[in-house]
């Protein structure tokens, strides 16, 4: 079972410094990447800070 129609190629272009992407697939992906980065970076920061808090908690 194929989920996309081979007669209509979907563009999945990378944004780069000289051109932004405009098609909807790339646009969705760009928003998704931004959300993923925000969440994962927040997790990383939280764990960094918790490593210090742990000190206080365990005494």
């Amino acid at each position, binding site marked *: 079972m*194929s989920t996309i129609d081979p007669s209509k190629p979907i563009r999945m272009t990378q944004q780069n410094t000289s051109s932004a992407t405009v098609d909807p697939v790339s646009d969705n992906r760009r928003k998704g990447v931004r959300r993923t*980065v925000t969440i994962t970076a927040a997790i990383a920061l939280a764990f960094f800070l918790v490593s210090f808090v742990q000190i206080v908690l365990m005494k």
Partner: protein
Amino acid sequence: MSHAATHDHHDDHHGAPKNFFQRWCMSTNHKDIGTLYLVFALLMFFIGGSFAMLIRAELFKPGLQLMQPYFFNQLTTMHALVMIFGAIMPAFVGLGNWMIPLMVGAPDMALPRMNNLSFWILPFAFTLLLSTLFSAGGGPAGGWTMYPPLSLQSDSLAYVVFSVHLMGISSIMGAINIIATILNMRAPGMELLKMPVFVWSWLITAFLLIAVMPVLAGAVTMLLTDKYFGTNFFNPGGGGDPVLYQHIFWFFGHPEVYIMILPAFGIISEIIPTFSRKPIFGYKAMVFAIASIAFLSFIVWAHHMFAVGLPLGAEIFFMYATMLIAVPTGVKVFNWVSTMWGGSMTFETPMLFAIAFVILFTIGGFSGLMLALVPADFQYHDTYFVVAHFHYVLVTGALFAIIAATYYWLPKWSGRMYSEFWGKMHFWNSVIWVNVLFFPQHFLGLAGMPRRIPDYNVAFANFNMVSSIGGFLFGASQLIFLGVLVHGVFFSKKKATDRVWEGAKGLEWTVPSPAPFHTFDVPPVIHDDELAHGHVND
């Protein structure tokens, strides 16, 4: 390319830049950055390996032969730091960079410029770390675990902490990039539960990385402020506690050892089905086993601290939690064996390394179970038994998987077949000598030889000599690997087909060999038959 003159901007069609600096230093291409990671890891593997050769030379006979004890301690510390952070981890990141976009049908990583930064931090971090060996006070000598107060005595602490920060930033950025790629860049039709197991293993590993690398960064930051800024996090004289460092370190450290083995599980789960010509047995169970191992890895850290005097309840909790990991690990080993069962197997070099992985990693798992028993660990802790344990899981585990992956995907990378004869020579020499090297260390540990010492009781002389001989020959065998690689990348006359291996399935085998500079600019049309796991939900 001929039409390059008419395009003065970057577009989807250009090949690799001709200019060396442009191509390698400014790269945003996942394949080139993957290659950089792999070459860097290989270099670090030989540097870390030369430290190991010096260690085994000193331990060849009892008594001090070649070096002062303080230098020996620098060697054991540096060997571990270089191998863990410089060789094993970057090798997995390199494999992930190369293969994940190809396996999920993405044109590149989600964040290509951050990818460049993640890599190029590493040469600076390791130049800094290795340069401490040439400084007046010498390099770090307190062990890779950097326990205070011992580690605070070293003059190079600030350099080491800074280089660990750099490695941590690099790993975190790399992990974020991998998660963003897998979650957002898959070609239409590549559902999560149709992804190759290798991609799954990296997705889960990346979450481990973003959770624990910051904790390591926190721990070493506190070492730095304790030494230079008057804090007393780990100083009992000021109300601190050195055991807290161990808790924080191992909260990072145990997930870290799984960071070094989960991508290996992924690799083995790709190779065994290919050479057994059968789909993997229990695809979903394999994915869930990886996820549950990752979860459990957060609640077992204190098994590294049984001997510090934990409350009895904690000893028992961490003992049982640790033993629980044997369950999902057993599922994986069972499924690899079941995949081979009844398959039409062939034994090319990648498969040989994969089979050796299954057997020898399991030996390391069993010695791990022995160490997980609190009363037994009181005896084994800080002996060569621990050294034997983690070298079985890391050398015949993680490293063998990296070598297997290299043989497996090299034809796709270079477009040429490596020499099967010399690959097998490399395999048989490695598998024999690695056991001569590490198996006797179990006996040394059980007999009471402590780890991290340059001299030892004459009672341990024979097994140490055997181990050193195995070490030299295992080290020499890796020169065969180097030769096979150079030949297979630059000189081999035998061209690789696109599929390379008869039984290979998945998107990465649908692109030409060598893989062109840009792949999947237009997402592939996915036929479930072409995927290794296209029919799991049918």
